[in-house]
């Protein structure tokens, strides 16, 4: 008997085009709970678009997305009323946290308020509750109470990105998505962000990371997805893909990093 775990996140045959440009040409991927998956590939390969489709910042043209019990069949969504799409996207986003390359913290709010805003507005959390939770999460990403009342502009990029992770965690996501989380950072600040992600992995958080950080991908990932030209070319064990890539295109891509 073969044990078949139900994946926490499942993407089936996802398609997305911008105008007449196909970006995703049928992408399928299963991610199990607790996994940390890195998605690598040359720029323009569709990896960011795929990530953004996962919480409907981009609306897919076709395919199926299923995350922690919410399934959206994207076939013919462009004809569905926008309200319908938004309600379903909203459900999906409840289960997914997202971290952006440019942090996108709310600059007019303190770091603590950044973590409190969404729980209070979306979940109607009480202020004290949201504040306690926010402080706890900031502490967890290494931002002690002295940072709570700072504004984003008063912090380094690494601190801002960690705060952005805390902000996403405040919504109790089942899956965390990272869109090149360290690309906008000075090299010496990269590690503090990656450490937070490793800690989360150790706690069993499911994470999908689009990254150019090959060292991190190799060290921390459970497996690596290589994308090119709107397809997933290879899914491999983190060591194997670097030592014995199966596909010629993967080999070409990785050659530049090693």
């Amino acid at each position, binding site marked *: 008997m073969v044990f078949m775990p139900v994946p926490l996140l499942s993407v089936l045959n996802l398609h997305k085009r911008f105008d007449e440009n196909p970006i995703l040409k049928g992408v399928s991927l299963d991610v199990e709970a607790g996994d940390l998956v890195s998605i690598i590939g040359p720029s323009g390969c569709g990896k960011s678009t795929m990530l953004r489709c996962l919480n409907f910042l981009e609306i897919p043209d076709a395919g199926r997305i299923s995350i922690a019990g919410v399934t959206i069949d994207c076939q013919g969504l462009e004809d569905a009323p926008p309200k319908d799409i938004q309600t379903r996207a*909203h459900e999906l*986003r409840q289960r997914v946290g997202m971290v952006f390359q440019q942090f996108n913290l*709310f*600059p*007019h709010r303190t770091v603590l308020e950044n973590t409190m805003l969404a729980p209070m*507005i979306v979940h109607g959390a009480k202020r004290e509750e949201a504040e306690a939770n926010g402080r706890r999460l900031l502490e967890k990403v290494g931002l002690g109470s002295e940072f709570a009342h700072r504004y*984003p502009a008063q912090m380094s990029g690494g601190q801002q990105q960690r705060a952005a992770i805390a902000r996403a965690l405040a*919504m109790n996501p089942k899956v965390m998505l990272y869109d090149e989380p360290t690309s906008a950072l000075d090299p010496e600040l990269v590690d503090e962000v990656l450490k937070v992600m490793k800690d989360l992995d150790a706690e069993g958080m499911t994470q999908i990371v689009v990254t150019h950080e090959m060292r991190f991908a190799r060290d921390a990932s459970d497996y690596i997805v290589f994308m090119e030209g709107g397809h997933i070319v290879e899914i491999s064990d983190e060591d194997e893909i670097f030592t014995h890539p199966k596909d010629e295109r993967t080999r070409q891509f990785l050659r530049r990093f090693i």
Partner: protein
Amino acid sequence: MRRLAVFLSLLLAFGAQAADPVLRWAADPDSNAPFAFFDPSNKLTGFEYEIITAIARRMNRTPKFVQNDWDGLIPGLGRDLYDVVICGIEITPEKAGEVLFSNPYYVTFEQLVVRKGTPPITSLDELKGKQIGTLDQTAALDMLEKIPGVEAKTYDEEVNAYQDTANGRIFGVLLDYPIAKYYAAPNPNLQFTGPPFGQISYGIALRKGNTALQKEMNSALAEVIASGEMRDILSRWGLWTPLVAGALGQPEDPSLPDTEYKAFVAGHAEQATCWTRMQRYAGYWPLLLRAALLTLEVSIVGMILAVSVGFTLAIMRVFGPWPLRWLAMLYIEIIRGTPLLIQLYIIFYGLPAVGIKLSPFIAGVLGLGLNYAAYEAENYRAGLLAIPRGQMEAARALGMTHRQGLFHIVIPQSFRLVLPPVTNDFISLLKDSSLVSMVTLLDLTGAYNRIATQTFDYFGTGLLIAAIYLLIGLPFVRLARYTEEKLAVDQRKPGQKPGLFNLPKRRK
């Protein structure tokens, strides 16, 4: 509680001003001697003021004065802003089509005034090719327009026409004899010339169809004439001429000495020293205070309206579905593309034609607010578009709806961005509020007109009013800058606090 009740009943009584014992009469008192004008102590006086007071007394009504601009006097009747107009209005067939007239209360002619030393003129035909000043909507203007080749120039205030003649800007002024007698005769640089031109009768104008009031008015007027009171009034004002006497059927010689005329001439001949000028301005402070408060009130309420409507328009334009977007754009283009003054006129004088009558204050605020809304909308639109897309994406990714993202994330950030241009517009609106003097409100610019035409000190009054505008605007500029600094958290350095005056810190 009791006091409130009294206040409310007063308000009600005021609201129901059509209730009888009041006679609401209108005139344009700015540089309007000897008709109805404010004397240097800012009290209403003039022969028409005395006549309408005498008539009202005989009608057992309390006269209530309503100020309006000359051009708006007749339209104001139609708007039911007042019951009658008495302001040297000549009875002509064209005007008789627009309003009802009482019987004439004064009969006079047009007097030509030219610069001292100009060769005598005996006929209006000699004015061909010359520029002649006069007022709008007068018999004099009709006369001038009938002579080919005369270039008639209309002025808002007669003093300005005479001043231009004295300064050689125009050849002369053709205006009613009383005006010439009061404004031109005392001026050593001007002289009367030519015979009396034409004959004109002044009548009190009433709203068309108001025949009951017309009848009541005529019998009161007849009593004022028959009792000799009219002759007394006109004699004191130096206006009792054989022409009037004949027309009203009274003895030719004046019944009293022309004390009012003498006093007017003496008051204006006096050379004002700097000190007496200052004293005179000091005497105007209640008027200036009231005018400044009105300007402030109109501007603030107008700006609140502009900001709220502009904000809605911007949201419609940036985030609305296409019909709303299109509507907002249409509104902005139309309002921005047409002059504010015309919009004010339409709101105040035009809307009553379709049954919407607004008080001058409401009309002024609406005009300014709706006009500035178009500009504010564009400010907000720019502010909203300046917020990076990632902000909304982050809000959506956190599970906020579009609306929540808009109100909690995007709009608060754009507020700081639009503050400087909005402050700019407020200052601009503060100054444009001077246009509400066109809809009968006595704001600072209205006060300028009144004071300048009473003191003939255009320069000093101008400086004074300009200074008041400046003083009113400054605190708002400061407040806006302070708020802006306070909101600029996304640009603040660690440890930096917002301050009203960001002076460099001094070491102790």
